[in-house]
């Protein structure tokens, strides 16, 4: 066990220190504790070591040893390994410790990150004030945002492409937002609904428009996430549910307050399914006023269910 750990440390040091890629034979000659003589088990143990390093975030570059391109060698590029010093002071490290203990994300990653940044400073939080889920592929999306790589993935059974500008968390879900080159428009995708492991394109594959932030996509409620042509809808909400709806949408959504306390709220709808759900969730306390095609959509939807033979 500690022999393997020693070899892993020495392997990391050697691959970081070398100026040119080293072949497996060269590594086997130099490293202590060494690899087995027998070639198949040597290769197997080296692959296992490489995998352990990869899991820790240590990337091993594979490339030809010389310009003739004959032999393959390995090294760790310093730029891939070293964390640029963020220059955190003790108070900032203590604040991050509070954050990762006060916010439950269901994994060990934030504590691993904290360790790389100099360990846990201060006491941390006794009790979580917030709980988040970090869905599969969120890390890939994050990496693509950081390096400006185009993403490709399956979504609702369709192949989609996205130049990701940012990540945002809202209503308990993560969205990756950006420019859809096929539709030439801004789009938001729920990360937990991505149906395939995303493909990640080359670094610096696009530029992010200056002055945009993911907060720009946070302007309104979930009915604004979608692919339908934008349309302004007006919904009448009865007095007894008005405070709930206004509380959720904000005062800016109120277009009219009636004598009986009912309100008319305005929504920019780009997702008809989500809009219909929003209205139906209010049961008989709400009614779509405009536009006619959205009103007709809700009526047709309800009629289909009201006229089911029983």
């Amino acid at each position, binding site marked *: 066990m500690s022999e393997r*750990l*020693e070899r892993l*440390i*020495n392997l*990391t*040091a*050697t691959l970081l220190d070398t100026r040119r890629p080293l072949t497996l034979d060269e590594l086997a000659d130099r490293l*202590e504790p060494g690899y087995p003589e027998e070639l198949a088990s040597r290769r197997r143990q080296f692959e296992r070591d490489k995998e352990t390093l990869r*899991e*820790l*975030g240590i990337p091993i570059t594979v490339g030809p040893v010389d310009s003739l391109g004959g032999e393959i060698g390995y090294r760790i590029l310093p730029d*891939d*390994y070293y*964390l640029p*010093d*963020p220059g*955190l002071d003790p*108070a*900032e*490290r203590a*604040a*991050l410790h509070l*954050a990762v203990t006060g*916010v*439950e*994300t*269901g*994994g060990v*990653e934030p504590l*691993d*990150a904290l360790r*790389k940044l100099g*360990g*846990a400073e201060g006491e941390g939080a006794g*009790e979580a*004030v*917030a*709980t*988040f*889920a*970090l869905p599969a592929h969120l890390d890939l999306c*994050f990496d693509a*945002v950081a390096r400006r790589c185009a993403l490709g993935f399956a979504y609702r059974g369709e192949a989609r492409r996205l130049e990701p*500008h*940012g*990540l945002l*968390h809202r209503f*308990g879900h993560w969205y990756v937002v950006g420019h859809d080159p096929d539709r030439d428009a801004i789009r938001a995708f729920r990360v937990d609904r991505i149906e395939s492991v995303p493909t990640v394109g080359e670094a610096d594959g696009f530029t992010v428009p200056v002055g945009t*932030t*993911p907060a720009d996509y*946070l302007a309104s409620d979930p009915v604004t996430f979608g692919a339908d042509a934008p349309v302004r809808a007006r919904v009448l909400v009865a007095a007894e549910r008005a*405070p*709930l709806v206004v509380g959720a949408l904000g005062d800016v959504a109120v277009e009219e307050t009636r004598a009986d306390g009912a309100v008319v709220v305005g929504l920019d709808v780009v997702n008809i399914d989500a809009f219909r*759900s929003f209205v139906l969730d209010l*049961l008989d306390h709400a009614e779509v006023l405009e536009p006619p095609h959205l009103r007709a959509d809700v009526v047709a*939807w*309800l009629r289909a*269910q*009201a006229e*089911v033979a029983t």
Partner: protein
Amino acid sequence: MSRPLAGPRLARVLAIVPYVCANPDTTVTELAERFRVPRSEIERDLALLPMCGLPPYTADRLIDVWVDDEGYVDIRLAEYFERPLRLTPAEGVALLAAARALLAVPGADPTGPLGTAVAKLEATVGVSGRIAVDVGSAPLLGALRDAVAAGERLELDYHSYARDELTTRRVDPTRVFHVLGAWYLDAFCHRAGAGRRFRVDRILAVRPTGETVPAAPPGPAPASAPSGAGVLTDLVYEPRAGDRRVELRLAPEAAWVADDLPLDARVDEADGSVRVTLAVSGDAFLERLLLRLGPAAEILGPPEVTELRRSAAARLLERYTR
């Protein structure tokens, strides 16, 4: 005897070396606290390092570790490990999500140490201003948090989602927290005579009673916040044995809904549809669910649920046809 895996220990060693190099007055005790392991683990790590280095492993190529009598640690000849390892994307996003979430909680100071730490980290990783976390800002959140801190008894007007009714109740708040998109209040409810969990966005009004809560709240608070709740159901509802059970078949495009429902049973069919048995607390909840799903939900039983959907749809239609 089970030994720790090589990976986590390697990660710790690769973090300890740069920390000690940057902080020459570090002690073994401080390292143990900082890296959350017993002193003996740190001592094992430090004992291992002098056997490591670069080929040909002569004295001038091996890492030099010195621990003095008072526990001060000095590490030399480890230039290649003097700076920490980059964050993996998973680590980066988890750390920034947690920090951004705490910054988004109403009342957080964006100019404080957490705010500056996030700005520095985002710049380092190359995602400045590209991660946004919204935890919502229910208007009554501040009043509820203050009441928990001060131990005040409150009167609430509350909208019960499952039954679609409004109630007024006196509560002793114990905890306010956020889970997956919604804020919750745990409190002892005098109307129910037991601990209850409320969704903050369904509290319509809060009034002080002028009373304070006895030091130990009467009755146990619900267990710590479970995870996994979604948009359709929430943490307020905990199914009881006597609650109605409904069996549905969800079409493939609606199968994801199953993840958000309180299920007794679930069968994934070969065609991508899902058969579920779910517990239902009130008719209003079931009406909403069925109306929203529409043709994507086939009712398998009991038979009166089909009539419940039909009559709910007819009732809503009256608003549009009168």
